[in-house]
């Protein structure tokens, strides 16, 4: 499965507020559903997302069972310097996924 869709502006002026949008592929099984046989389908969700801007954390979110499959997050930050955004998703069953996107600040 393709890992993630990332939308970060490639360029920004110093001091600009930029929007970052990330979408990752995940089933987000809430753990409350049952199979036709009555067995509980075990919970399998992403529990945490973090975004680092040149190494320092700028955004963190906890995710819960009510969040839809393939969760989409949008948040804002101030463009201060050129560099990289690193994204990390952590979840049940040892799920871990990373992605990154560069930005040039002029």
């Amino acid at each position, binding site marked *: *499965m*393709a890992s993630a*869709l*990332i*939308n970060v502006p490639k360029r920004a002026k110093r001091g600009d507020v930029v929007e970052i*949008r990330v*979408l990752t*592929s995940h089933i*987000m099984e809430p753990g409350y559903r049952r199979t036709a046989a009555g067995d509980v389908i075990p919970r399998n969700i992403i529990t945490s997302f973090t975004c680092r801007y040149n190494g320092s954390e700028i955004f963190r979110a906890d995710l819960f069972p009510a969040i*839809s*499959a*393939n969760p*989409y997050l949008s948040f804002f930050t101030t463009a201060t310097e050129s560099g990289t955004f690193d994204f990390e998703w952590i979840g049940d069953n040892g799920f871990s996924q990373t992605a990154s996107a560069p930005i040039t600040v002029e």
Partner: protein
Amino acid sequence: MRTAYAIIALLLAVMHAHATEIPQAQRRSGYSFMSPDSKAMQDDDTSNPGMLWVLDGEAIWNKPVGTANKACADCHGDATASMRGVAARYPAFDEALGRPVDLEQRINLCRTERQQAPALDYESHDLLALTAFIAHQSRGMPIAPVGDPQLAPFLAKGRELFMQRQGQLNLACANCHDDDWDKHLAGSAITQGQPTGYPMYRLEWQTLGSLSRRLRGCITGIRAQAFSYGSPELVELELYLMSRAAGMPVETPAVRP
């Protein structure tokens, strides 16, 4: 003479009963019935979850499989050129089978005959991904049925099925999607049932799904026995729906509520 008038009156009445098909100028994609939020989700490739499948489909396209150890790309090359417009003219007639096949069936025929790999299950991730990747190459192109005369009897059957009342609710597809598409069913728009964006990401499904899945859902909704995946009836219905939507742009992967 009186009998002749009676026959003419009867004919006019019959014609009127069949004159419910949507005029060309009034045809609307399901997209136009959606909220601005859902439209924005489809319009931006980084927020459209269907793009996850398109990207996966591209990887599958280039990966050799089966005992022939061939990838789709080994025969078809660059999909952006070779697959452009293909989804816009499917289902298409298959000479060997003597009947129309939809895109999913064509992919599986290619897999079993050319790649000598096992067929992919309907609604499996890989089949949806490949179908989405191929159909995505036609995005923006008008749906263009080929008008193959061999398809005519199947098209007629599909149309007949669309008009045929069935199930415990005794509804035909046409009763909602030709007659009442400007109304609502509970809070939801009924829509015209134009198959412009398949496979599509349906928010209710929380995943990508094929036109067959959508049709089966609708058939279950009118409390009729749904046709099996890959059944001739579903392909004939798809064929009719595509001819009904001729000229409308392909949106794959669409997002729908």
